[in-house]
């Protein structure tokens, strides 16, 4: 029983790192722009397809493929921002919600027409590491390592660079930031670009573990909402922590209950955190 629990927790926590990266994109956009990006799931799936296409057609190592995928994610985010978000950013929240939902439907529709909804798979196995009774896939270990690097990079960007500090300033008080000469429009565009970049990178990492379709981003989008609420909005470390908690639960619950109970308890936790600590674990308590 203990063996099973440890194996299950290890798998869950390693996956939790990648959940964290997926949620970072959502939490950044939500926290800075107060936009709930419903195109987050399809962008994760686009990251999967980007990695897949670079691997199958150009023979690029899937982990190296994450670099161009990140670049394309950033560019896509800027395009989505200019076309669908910029004009509704000051409108009531429902407008941006509907606008990003429309982008979600467009991406799914176009990609279904191009790729169909047949499952795709990156046929690239690194094998597994055996330690005593544990068998850990190297791909999950690399995924976790990648997630740590991405978190460190994003944290450094936000806290130690001028554009990062500007983004935080815009998140804190957009009017005051503008008075200080910060071009808030550019910062918002950059934030949206970074958010989609993170989603695409998370998708690329997930594609190295599991088969996928253009609809595969949806479960990660839902998990990202739970993680954002758990970790607190706009905080990359909070997102990583939230991802790890979710991964821990996904490892813990199946050891005692049927796997079908996992979403029930995950979303139960979502409601509970909203009720008890709506600003999340690392968010400042509401005054």
């Amino acid at each position, binding site marked *: 029983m203990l063996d099973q629990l440890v194996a299950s927790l290890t798998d869950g926590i390693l996956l939790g790192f990648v959940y964290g990266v997926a949620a970072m994109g959502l939490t950044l956009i939500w926290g800075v722009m107060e936009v709930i990006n419903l195109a987050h799931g399809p962008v994760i799936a686009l990251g999967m397809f980007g990695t897949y296409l670079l691997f199958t057609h150009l023979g690029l190592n899937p982990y190296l493929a994450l670099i161009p995928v990140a670049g394309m994610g950033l560019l896509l985010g800027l395009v989505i921002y200019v076309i669908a978000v910029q004009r509704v950013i000051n409108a009531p929240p429902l407008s941006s919600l509907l606008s990003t939902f429309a982008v979600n439907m467009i991406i799914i529709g176009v990609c279904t027409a191009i790729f169909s909804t047949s499952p795709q*798979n990156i046929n690239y196995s690194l094998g*597994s590491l055996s330690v005593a009774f544990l068998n850990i896939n190297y791909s999950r270990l690399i995924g976790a390592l990648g997630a740590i690097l991405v978190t460190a990079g994003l944290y450094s960007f936000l806290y130690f660079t001028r554009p990062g500090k500007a983004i935080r300033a815009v998140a804190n008080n957009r009017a005051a930031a503008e008075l200080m000469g910060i071009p808030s429009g550019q910062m918002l565009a950059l934030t949206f670009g970074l958010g989609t970049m993170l989603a695409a990178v998370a998708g690329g990492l997930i594609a190295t573990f599991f*088969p*996928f379709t253009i609809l595969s981003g949806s479960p990660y989008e839902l998990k990202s909402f739970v993680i954002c609420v758990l970790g607190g909005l706009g905080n990359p470390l909070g997102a990583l922590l939230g991802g790890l908690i979710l991964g821990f639960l996904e490892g813990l619950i199946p050891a005692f209950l049927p*796997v079908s109970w996992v979403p029930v308890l995950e979303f139960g936790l979502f409601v509970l955190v909203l009720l008890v600590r709506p600003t999340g674990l690392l968010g400042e308590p509401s005054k």
Partner: protein
Amino acid sequence: MKRLLVLCSVVTVLGFLSVTVMSPAPALAAAKAKAKTETILVGFTASQTGKLNVESVRQLNGFHLWMDQVNKAGGIKLPDGTLVKVKDKYYDDESKKERVQELYTKLINEDKANFLISPYSSGLTDAAAVIAQQYGRIMITTGAASDSTYKKGYTLVYQTYTPASKYLTGAVDILMKLGAKSKKIAIIYSNDKFSTDVVKALKTYAEAKGFKVVMFEGYDPSTTDFSPFINKIPQGVDAVMGGGHFADTTTLARQLYEKKVKTRMIALLVAPPEPKFAELGPACISVIGSSQWEPLAHFTQAAAKKEGLPWFGPSGDAFVKAYKAKYNEMPSYHSAGGYVAGLLLQEAIIKAGSTDTAKVKKALDGMNLMAFYGHVKFATSAKDHGLQIGHEMVYIQWQKNKQGKPVKQVVWPAAGATASPFVCPAPH
């Protein structure tokens, strides 16, 4: 001069007669030929996209091969000499149950399909069968093994596949032959209709044979991460069985391999007999799967004679050769299923001597034959009308050939086996 006039008159009269008497002959012949040609429309949906597309496209290919062969031969020849040509009309159901009923209604009402073939999978077929029965169209089902569809009182739905309740029970027999140690089995299955039917019957059978089912857990068909299930497999189980359809079962097989699960046997549904399963490489070796038909399985005219059954259709070798020539790949049992669905309809139309639904239904009810696909006979009682009661499964195992590449071998039943089954891990 008078003689000349008489001669001219005779020639004129004969010429006139030849025109009037001879000319209607080709017209009559043409009219007769026209009366002897008929065209039927066979309607169905196929999962050209979505999670069922691998199996469904093979099924579609099999059906198209049959249709092409029939039409090239001039059509289905009825006893009265009428030639029945076959046309098809199909739509992509996107592997979605909710699309199926709408599309089958369209096939019947707008496209005026005379006969129906089922979509691929039990879930989709169950949805389509209601429409077929409701609108009074015969439906030959293929790729639809679930028993329950045929126990709903339908009278026009006929099953080609061996029912789900017999799908994996032979794996227990193989395990007994290999020598069970702990007598424990773990069953991980897709919680769709077909897979659930299969594993329920499997569990009952295994328990009746003295095995203990120590894990019995279903997963959502869209699952891609099987580690929560694999981590729960108790140590020392004799076998891991279950799965669902191609996409999820292939992922399950890959992850069982990556997780280095220690067990003596892995027996999974649907995916292993597919030639594409070999793309898993080392992860496919030793996996056992049940198959409705295999190219290696020898159902021949001699076997039919031995069992006192009439033979119908091409030989297995001829089917494989024609399929490979047309699609440049080996047929799977899904391909054979698609072909046989057409073949059974053809035989029933010939026996009925007509394309009339009531007459064809009567012929199907009385059908008891052997084809390259095996024995075919339908239940006709009110409680399970249309259920397949003649056909039996064969079991394959992926083994290595001399070059170390994956090769599929028939390992059960022993009489038709091309190799002996072995326990996991694969011998080197």
